[in-house]
Structure formats: C-alpha cells, structure tokens
C-alpha cells in the first residue's frame, strides 16, 4: 500500500467523528465504504469536491447513527442518558461545598486571598465543567457501544435547557447573567468530550485485545 499525500485524504476530523459514533462491528465497513467512495470522487471530480462530499456524508452518517442507536439498542442508550442525568443531579450540589471545604481546610482565604478569589469564582465553574465531563463518561459507560449517542443526547438536552434559560433571562431583563452562557455551553460540550474519552479508551482496549489474539 502506498501512502497518499495529506491533501488526497478525507478530512481527518470527519473520519475521527464517524469512527467515534459508529459501533465497533460496523466501523470497518462504514468507514471503508466512505473512503472508497472518497477515492473514486477525488479521482473523478477533484479532491476539494470529494472532501466536501465526505463532510456532508460524515454529518449525515452521525445523525443516522444516533437515530439507529435508539432503534437498535433503545434500553442501553436510554439507560446511558438516565445515568448521566442522575450523576449530574447527585454531583451538582457537591461542587461548591467541596471547593469551600478544601479552601477552608488549607486556610487559603487567610494566606492566599487571590487564589481564594479565583477558586471561589472561576474554580467553581471549572468544578461544574469537570462534573459534566464525568457525566458524559458515565452516560457513555452505561450506554455500552452507543457511547456517543447517549452523550450527544444529554448534551443536546442541556444545550436546549441553556437556550430556554437564556430566553427567560432576556425576557426578565437579567442581561448581566448572559455571560454565563459561555460556561453553560462549555458544560454541554464537556459531556461530548466525556463520551469521546470513554469511546476512545474502549476502542483502544478492543484494538489491543484483537492484536493479542492474532
């Protein structure tokens, strides 16, 4: 097999995303089919057209794979979403008390006031971000092979909730709070990252397992 120049290959991000959402048994066939068609299009219609085509196909494929995850494994995927919700509910209340307990335990307010201010403001936001990252991991872990379908569903739900909250803030004149949207959207994105971490780890374990068997 000869190596192709970088520009003759499909977009790496799109390939990675398709791999992330495809269940392991189907990944080889689906990614291979897309790559075969990409090679054909690149030689007949040009690389730019083929790369654009690949992105369109990748996005369509991801939407379809999320839909088919609910169709093929409705219980596992829904259990992942429910587990994510429960985890978020359990851990959400613990972020601020935990941070302030640690700050008091090491007497940060007395000795490093600027550090205290940082952890009491941005630190709390980072704490919530880590909670959402963990929520994504739990949802993906429970959903088994449909990790990203569960994580994406949760992410979309929390994004929608943020959208509704933003509308109500605007409607009630609380414009000053809108800057928080950046953190809220980052929380939803952290769920996807959590799902991707679990999926990538599982794929790596599976790959090393199959290499050991051969």
């Amino acid at each position: 097999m000869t190596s192709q120049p970088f520009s003759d290959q499909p977009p790496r991000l799109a390939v990675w995303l398709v791999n992330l959402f495809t269940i392991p048994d189907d990944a080889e066939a689906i990614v291979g089919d897309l790559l075969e068609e990409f090679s054909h299009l690149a030689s007949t219609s040009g690389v730019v057209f083929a790369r654009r085509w690949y992105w369109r196909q990748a996005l369509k494929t991801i939407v379809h794979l999320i839909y088919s995850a609910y169709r093929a494994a409705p219980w596992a995927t829904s259990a992942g979403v429910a587990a994510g919700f429960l985890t978020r509910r359990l851990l959400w209340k613990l972020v601020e008390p935990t941070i302030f307990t640690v700050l008091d335990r090491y007497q940060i307010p007395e000795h490093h006031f600027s550090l205290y201010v940082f952890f009491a403001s941005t630190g709390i936001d980072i704490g919530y971000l880590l909670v959402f990252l963990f929520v994504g991991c739990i949802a993906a872990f429970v959903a088994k092979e449909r990790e990203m379908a569960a994580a994406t569903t949760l992410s979309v739900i929390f994004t929608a909730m943020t959208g509704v909250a933003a509308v109500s803030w605007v409607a009630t004149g609380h414009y000053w709070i809108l800057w928080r949207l950046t953190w809220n959207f980052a929380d939803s994105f952290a769920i996807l990252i959590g799902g991707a971490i679990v999926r990538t780890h599982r794929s790596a374990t599976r790959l090393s397992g199959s290499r050991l068997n051969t």
Partner: protein
Amino acid sequence: MGSRCGKRLNYAPAVYATLDRLETKGYVKSYRGEPTPERGGRSKRFFRVTAKGVAAVNRTRRALQSMAEGLGLIEGYS
C-alpha cells in the same frame, strides 16, 4: 444496487441498518472480504441473499403484483 436502481446510493449506514435487519430475519447473510488499499486497509462487507430471502422476495413481488393488478395499475390488467 445503484446501477440497478438507476441512482447513486452512497449513504452507507442507512443501507447497513436495513441489511442488518434483513440478516437478523435470515433473509441475507454477510461476510467480510479482503482489506483493500482503496479502503485504507479496511475490509468490505458483502451480502448474499439466502433461500429464505429469495422466497420472501418472490412472495412480496407476487403480493405487490396482485395488488397492482387489482387496482388497475398495470397496463393490460385494467
């Protein structure tokens, strides 16, 4: 499939979802081919229609033909 249908079929996962359902019902059987360079060293999944699948296709075709004849949708049967 694309040449038979007269249109380009390049939407991989939708095709696999349908074929997977047919395989579960025993209408088709799948097997993996050899990895090829065009596919980045990935193997292709091939499908073969089983005897049960052929029987189901014939049954469905007869049912459709019968309905079409009854509704006068086929020339010469109205």
